[in-house]
């Protein structure tokens, strides 16, 4: 290819598709490069789609996007080995004309999104891996090198949307390598069940869905969470922990998933299902401190490659789509103004991110990764204490309630002591502030 594109987008996940779509829609000459057979074939997520981020890109996406169920109920569970303590929120208000959250199957959803990118006029090349950036003698990025023969391609600007491993940026020396304490490894299975079984098992209607987010003893002392999401005819079940914790604890990820699936609160929900896929994926969980330099002469980084994930609220794909859109708008505006794609112009991307929920939310929770890392008892002691407390109060056995309360207080104080309890409250409150 000898022509020079207005922009090259590396990767066809949520951030890359959002970016390529917005630029192509504005009439730019866009090339998108994807290493998979098709967009979605290399991508893994739970997965929840947050409608708002996509609506700002494709307002009428509900008409033909492959959506599984809109979410009407969220269950948050804390597990110890035998029990779960938790809160549920279910509301008929979520049965609205334009639902807010959906479960999706990424291989299907990404394929749809990428078809929209093509329809908008971008050239999409699959089965091609970008190996590095091409720079001019002043260090400005002017194109990419691929694993195809004669695979050098040139553009005014390159947007890296190549996911959590962000190989292109780190190998080109513009981003530091991801560290094991800033990413979680998640493993996931797809369990298939008839639609009516899922609906009766979860007490939901035809289009309605339930998500269960889980923390506790199921991660055997590691920092992590587990999940269970209802699709139309399948249930996605997965668990993830920090890579640094996996290496330290020497726990097999597949063992952890099996342990979770066999928990007495989870097992009946999956009974009789047929497993059709086992996947693994890294999730950026380093928070704001792990976010790299986001732009430079001739380049920008978006989505997971920029480590945009809000681990507390399990949000990532919305940050990916939003960052992709903001990067696209930056290019479009520069193009309109006839400005070059250099650092002093592309800084507008970072400013737009700072004005959006992406950086604001990462900033809000910037302290949390460290707090969790240094306080593993949040995942061990508290789940056990909460479960014991609930069992003590609910079991009717002739013991008076005041004695039961004393027993519970004693258990908390002997495990964490008063100073520890107060410190935990302070640390958590500060991390969530």
């Amino acid at each position, binding site marked *: 290819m000898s022509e020079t594109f207005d922009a090259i987008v590396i990767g066809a996940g949520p951030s890359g598709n959002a970016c390529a779509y917005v630029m192509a829609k504005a009439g730019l000459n866009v090339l998108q490069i994807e290493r998979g057979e098709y967009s979605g*074939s290399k991508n893994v997520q739970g997965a929840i789609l947050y409608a708002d981020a996509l609506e700002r890109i494709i307002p009428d996406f509900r008409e033909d996007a492959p959506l599984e169920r809109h979410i009407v109920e969220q269950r948050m569970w804390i597990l110890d080995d035998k029990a779960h303590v938790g809160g549920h929120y279910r509301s008929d208000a979520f049965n609205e004309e334009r639902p807010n959250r959906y479960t999706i199957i990424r*291989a299907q959803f990404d394929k749809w999104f990428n078809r929209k990118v093509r329809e908008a006029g971008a050239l999409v090349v*699959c089965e091609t891996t970008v190996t590095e950036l091409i720079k001019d003698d002043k260090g400005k990025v002017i194109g990419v090198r691929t694993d*195809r023969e004669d695979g050098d391609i040139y553009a005014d600007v390159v947007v890296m949307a190549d996911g959590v491993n962000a190989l292109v940026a780190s190998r080109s020396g513009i981003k530091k390598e991801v560290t094991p304490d800033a990413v979680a490894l998640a493993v996931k299975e797809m369990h298939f069940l008839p639609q009516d079984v899922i609906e009766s098992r979860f007490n939901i209607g035809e289009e309605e869905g339930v998500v269960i987010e889980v923390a506790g003893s199921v991660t055997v002392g590691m920092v992590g969470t587990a999940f269970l999401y209802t699709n139309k005819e399948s249930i996605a079940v997965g668990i993830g922990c920090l*890579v640094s914790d996996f*290496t330290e604890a020497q*726990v097999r990820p597949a063992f952890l998933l*099996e342990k979770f699936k066999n928990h007495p609160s989870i097992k009946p929900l999956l009974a009789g299902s047929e497993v059709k896929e086992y*996947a*693994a994926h890294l999730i950026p969980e380093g928070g704001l401190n792990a976010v790299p330099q986001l732009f430079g002469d001739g380049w920008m980084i978006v989505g997971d490659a920029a480590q945009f994930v809000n681990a507390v609220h399990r949000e990532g794909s919305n940050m990916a789509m939003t960052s992709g859109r903001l990067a696209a708008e930056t290019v479009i505006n520069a193009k309109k103004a006839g400005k070059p794609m250099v650092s002093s112009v592309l800084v507008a991307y970072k400013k737009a991110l700072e004005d959006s929920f992406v950086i604001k939310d990462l900033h809000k929770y910037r302290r949390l990764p460290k707090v969790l890392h240094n306080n593993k008892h949040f995942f061990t002691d508290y789940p056990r204490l909460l479960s014991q407390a609930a069992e003590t109060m609910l079991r009717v056995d002739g013991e008076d309630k005041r004695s039961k309360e004393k027993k519970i207080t004693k258990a908390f104080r002997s495990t964490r002591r008063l100073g520890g309890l107060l410190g935990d409250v302070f640390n958590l409150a500060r991390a969530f502030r």
Partner: protein
Amino acid sequence: MQEIHIKVEEKLYQNRYMVDEGRPHISVKPHTLPSEALASLVKICPAGCYSRTETGQVEIAPDGCLECGTCRIVCAATGDIEWNYPRGGYGILFKFG
């Protein structure tokens, strides 16, 4: 900890792969004794691609690789492995993802 015995290979049978015969995308550099990081991969690779030889070295059979990048990140500091994505179109092909 209670030991649940799981055969990861059985999980991988569900998956679709396009194996690039004779062109492994990950390789372990020759060593006599594995570093702690390299040795840890035997347990923590989610696809169970790493194993120990009889003489104590760590070896890899990357056919079942899920391309997560865990081993790459764990060994980034030690340089024990050479890691690349498979050639375009090869490797894991997620049906659902």
